[in-house]
């Protein structure tokens, strides 16, 4: 079954408090090479059958209206992954 993957990230200009907490925890585990972390979301939308252009357009619209909030987040990727 093909899936449409949607990736959403906090906007670059918005401080990501969760990412900041993670970057603070990494050195405590000995991971000292990372200067910043930003945490986003990945959605996997399963499609029964073929992913047509219309279905992909629906996924893009859902990504902009429900899956992300354009005030604080950007949809950075929408792609089809064959199972």
């Amino acid at each position, binding site marked *: 079954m093909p899936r449409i993957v949607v990736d959403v990230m*906090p906007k670059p*200009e*918005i*401080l990501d*408090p*969760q990412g900041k*907490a993670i970057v603070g925890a990494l050195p405590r585990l000995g991971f000292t090479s990372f200067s910043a972390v930003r945490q986003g979301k990945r959605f996997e939308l399963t499609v029964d059958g073929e992913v047509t252009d219309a279905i992909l357009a629906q996924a893009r619209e859902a990504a902009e209206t*429900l*899956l992300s*909030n354009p*005030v*604080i987040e950007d949809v950075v990727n929408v792609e089809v992954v064959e199972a």
Partner: protein
Amino acid sequence: MTELPLIGGAPVAVEPQLSGAKIGVVTFPGTLDDRDAARAVRMAGGTAVALWHADTHLADVDAVVIPGGFSYGDYLRAGAISRFAPLMSRIIDAANSDAKLPVLGICNGFQILTESHLLPGSMIKNDHLKFLCRDQVLRVENNTTFWTSDYEAGQEITVPLKNQDGQYIADEKTLDALEAEDRVVFRYVGWNPNGSRRDIAGISNAAGNVVGLMPHPEHAVEPGFGPESNAGTDGLGFFTSVLNKIVGGTQ
């Protein structure tokens, strides 16, 4: 039905004509504060009407309170799924219509109002990442909205604050516009508890009928439960304001 406080006498002299005003209180799956909000309406002298998120009509209410809680478990984003409930479409239409339905969003209700685009900006996690519950001092910056007319401009009130995603953010242009149009209704005083831009605790739409804030006025409506420095009834003015507005408007 008028509600009596558990301790002491009625915090305000309830005016009989206010009981004709009906204020809807919306319950979503995961709402916590609907009963307190309904009680606050009754303590102020109004009639509370329970509304369910799946309802498709507004039951002729004169105003709506969207209470706090964790609707849909805050899944996806706080308020994001509730925004698409059938009743929210009715509320959005009525708030934007010429009738200017008064709408108050408290905490999760404020988050739902920003997700609905009835109010600009959004809330993200508190800058310190912790859930916080405290008595919070607020300054009433605008007492001309439907929900704040019973306060003095500049009055400081103390009401509970309890949230994890309370950091109000918007871009600089939006913040400048909110300030210029007098739409910052409440600011945190003394300490900014969550990193909100420009200490903003609550805002309104341009018409002043829609107000949202993170702190909880519905938890501060009867004496004996607030901090010692204060009677604990500072939140009651929200509800008497809108009731007086409704009754005055229909006379």
